[in-house]
């Protein structure tokens, strides 16, 4: 899987309340509607600025806080192709993989706001075209690759009727 787009940079500890505020998520299951509010407490115009295929780039502990799966879903439905961060909070990380949103652990200090980047998941490398350098990606655990390749956990269950990592 290869994605290219622009980087939208955020800081450390971006929590799930910032990704999608609790005041919206309890009201609806319409993810397209929720996506309009994604990241709005950190950048009120984010949804207007983001183009299809762009990346959210965070620091450490991205996605900390609640277990709301609306967080990765709202990002996905805003047409963001992947989230890049130095590290992720574990529930967000699971939820992203389960719902088919690629999450990429890498040194995001080498990416600035607005950089044009290409993420090559299979090759495990990011190409920062603006800066002209490459950044290695920390490989995903095998189980997560399996779930992503199956198209998320729901598709994995449809295929096997339960967990099957054999």
């Amino acid at each position, binding site marked *: 899987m290869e994605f290219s787009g622009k980087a939208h940079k955020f800081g450390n*500890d971006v*929590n799930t*309340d*910032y990704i999608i*505020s*609790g*005041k919206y*998520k*309890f*009201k*609806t*299951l319409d993810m397209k509607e929720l996506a309009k509010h994604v990241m709005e*407490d950190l950048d009120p115009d984010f949804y207007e600025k983001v183009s299809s295929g762009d990346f959210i780039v965070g620091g*450490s*502990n991205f996605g*900390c*806080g*609640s*277990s*709301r*799966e*609306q967080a990765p*879903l709202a990002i996905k439905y805003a047409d963001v192709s992947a989230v890049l961060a130095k*590290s992720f*909070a*574990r*529930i967000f990380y*699971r*939820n992203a993989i*389960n*719902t088919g949103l690629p999450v990429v652990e890498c040194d995001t200090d080498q990416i600035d706001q607005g950089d044009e980047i290409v993420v090559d998941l299979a090759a495990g490398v990011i190409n920062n075209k603006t800066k002209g350098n490459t950044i290695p990606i920390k490989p995903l*655990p*095998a*189980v997560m690759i399996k779930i992503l390749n199956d198209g*998320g*956990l*729901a598709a994995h*269950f*449809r295929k096997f*009727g*339960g*967990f099957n*990592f054999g």
Partner: protein
Amino acid sequence: MGQTIIEKILSSHCGQTARANEIVVARVDYVMGQDGTAPLAINAFNDMNGKEVFDHEKVAFVIDHSAPSPNEGVSALHKLMREFVREKMFRLYDIGEGVCHQLIPESGEVGPGSLVIGADSHTCTYGALNAFSTGVGSTDLAGGLISGQMWFKVPETFKFVCNGTLPPGVFSKDLILYLIGDVTADGATYMAAEYVGEAIAALSQEARFTIANMAIEMGAKAGLMEADDKTYDWLRRFTKREFTQVVADGDAIYAKVREYDVSKLEPQVAKPHKVDNVAPVGDVAGKPIQQALLGTCTNGRLEDLRIAAGILANRKVHPDVRMIVAPASRRIFLDAMAEGIIQTLVESGAAIVTPGCGPCVGTHNGVPSDGETVISTANRNFKGRMGNSNAEIFLASPATVAASALTGKITDPREFI
């Protein structure tokens, strides 16, 4: 080679010897979803071609996050949950029964050695009962509902050794805030926290829940403690079931160990907008507040209400402060009534709301206005957490919240104890 508590619990549920960093598929003893996460899980359940839940007795949904429903959008989601529960025939805790993390322990289904998943990040609370319980998202919840299993990366363990005796006016909430401030919000990410030492042993079972509850605020997957007589006495109020406790081996391997002496600890607060932004109460004392919240799965238990009532008795909440009290469960509400605690709180000027989450997560029952400051016994002070991103939230113990409600500004509770 010895094992930690979490390695042992996972081993007994996956049929092999589980070691840190391995990936295992384990049997789960209980599965819980709440009204913020269950509706999406129902979608995922259908998407997975789910037919039945794996065991009617081992599954529950709780309507607590916006209960009773504040608007028609939420009402539709609650209805979806009620219909699903009726069709699949398992337990629903409806409005007014309380917060999921109080109800599941009170159900008697969880005890030492249990393995629980809940679609709520504070599911780690039941670690205070020597159980491995952890938060998952809606798709994982659906997988658990169907299969009765979950995959886990066996976490490494971070041991917190807490020695000494907490001084008067300093509580388990102050201790956990201090620990989070010390290791930071991602200090235990991907790890299990184990809390041991004489300061933990001295705490009541209720006070221990507060510590396990906030393990997630240091990034941990679980917040575990050993069981003792207090644990078993607490459990016996709710169940006749026998549980065997799980203790770590003497030669278990820990990723990190930190020792603390709590004897000089002062009351702590977490300042806006991060839980690890912790300082002694003296650093912010005098800051005016407009709202005080006593409740939540962190500090809405009987002991918490009793501590606050002790400070508020025969006094009045400051006229500039709205004091909101949400008992964590109906049982606690009833016990607090029987003990006269509710009478005391209401006479002091507090508003009691339905047992549940409400104000904690900004769905209703006390959304602050722009520029306002709230002091709360909850576990999160993120910007916008209580429904308004232009408000500030300070986290503190029930004693500090009650003392601050009286004076209208952040106050060291030791002035009233």
